[in-house]
């Protein structure tokens, strides 16, 4: 069993293309002046069908997190950290926090995006604590 790999739809492809370049990109709804995530055909607020892709900062804060001690399958090696990250531009995203000791994590900490290879052609965003970026 291997880790689940996204198979992007045409609507989602720009998100993964940006990840491959080492950039985090989100859809932006001009009428709402608001970013959204996950990728959609329409704004989930006003249902405007014309959304722009914009590169964002990759900065966020931890809304919540858990250290998974019993992995979902043998494709994952516990412990690993699953977190909900509130991005600086507004949307919330689920990800992993990597390169950290679980004991130092807390809700509200600042994190920054990084990218990891999930398969030969898919990179996914993960996050690192800002205080330990040099590690």
């Amino acid at each position, binding site marked *: 069993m291997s880790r689940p790999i996204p198979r992007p739809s045409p609507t989602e492809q720009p998100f993964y293309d940006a990840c491959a370049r080492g950039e985090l990109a989100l859809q932006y709804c001009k009428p709402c002046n608001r970013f959204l995530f996950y990728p959609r055909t329409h704004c989930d607020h006003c249902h405007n069908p014309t959304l722009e892709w914009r590169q964002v900062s990759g900065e966020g804060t931890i809304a919540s997190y858990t250290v*998974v001690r019993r992995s*979902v399958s043998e494709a994952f090696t516990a412990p690993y950290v699953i977190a909900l990250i509130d991005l600086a531009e507004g949307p919330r995203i689920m990800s992993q926090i990597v390169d950290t000791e679980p004991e130092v994590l807390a809700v509200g900490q600042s994190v920054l995006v990084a990218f990891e290879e999930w398969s030969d052609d898919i990179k996914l965003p993960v996050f690192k604590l800002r205080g330990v970026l040099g590690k």
Partner: protein
Amino acid sequence: MAKSGLNSTCALIGMAESDVGIVPDKTPRELCVQVTLDAVRDAGLTLQEVDGLITCNAFAEPIMYHAEAVAEYLGWQPRHCVTVNTGGGTTFMAIKMAAAAIAAGMAHTIVVAMADSLRSFMTREQAMVVQSSSGHPHYEQPYGPTVPAYYALIARAHMDRFGTTEEHFAHAAVSCRAWANQHPKAQMRDLISIEDVMGSRPIADPLKVLDCSLVSDGGAAVVITRGDRASNAAQKPIYLLGYGEGHAYEHISQAQDLTTSAAVTSGRAAYADSGLTPNDMDLLQLYDCFTPALLIQIEDLGFCAKGEGGDWLASGISLPGGTKPLNTHGGMLSYCHPGNPGAMFGLTEAMLQLRGQAGERQLAGMNTALCHAQGGIMSSHATLILGNARPS
């Protein structure tokens, strides 16, 4: 608030449970067939006097057209036959659909039956993977979250916002086990302490294995009929006094609020429907898939102020001898949790208590009960308010 239109239109007149816990000798379909027949017999009816069937599919034995397959197995051609799936909320949304079909004249008496065998007909890994597949395939599952991890995210957020502690969650597990200790069928009966929960194996911090519900086999069914037919029933009818539901999101990463759920919407609708309040409830049967879910429902269904669920549990009010008996069969934490049918056992236990048929477990003064179920990751909610007196 608008009424559901379902209150007082129908009553539950039959119920059955299979063996629960570890039941390797029957497939989920066979368990579903068995509880269907047993519930109809309990109602003093024959299958020919029942004209509807609602079921839920089984993870361990998926069937494309599940309700039709169960009816066929029984050589039965019901007038109304449908499979529903809203995860753990399927149970009571199926009750709603049965009541709505009866109110609309599409049937007069319906069996709601479901069973699954996560314990004996799936490996531990299969059960983990199939349940975590509720996560978003592109934006959650690739990171390896488990269902306990989703609830751990909710738990951590509640701790951070309200000062709730891991011990508070542990009280929910201890309370359910204390009730299960009194039930001869419960899968886990040995009494546990707060220290036992705190010291149990870590699963997804802050949740330990004793904060998590069981993995079980089992099935249950109820028979629901039109109010005017209920008065001639073989058993004391249990009336549906109120119904509510609420839907907030599907994936936890899309939740607007991690610590307050759509149980607020669901509960308010059910109270308005019945004209009753949280204080009027003699018995609570809540959805305890994980201890934080139970704690949040206690708050969101109005049994205490927001943020005070931990203190409510720690007060001992829900324990045997307390004034708000909660999950008196032991809940999914200790009685059994065969997946989507899990909340059915809260309903069957409520029916027994309201009928006065709970045997040595029978509690005094049981006239009203609130049963709550939820699907997804605290995503969709359904609340039943039941009573044993015909509403005027």
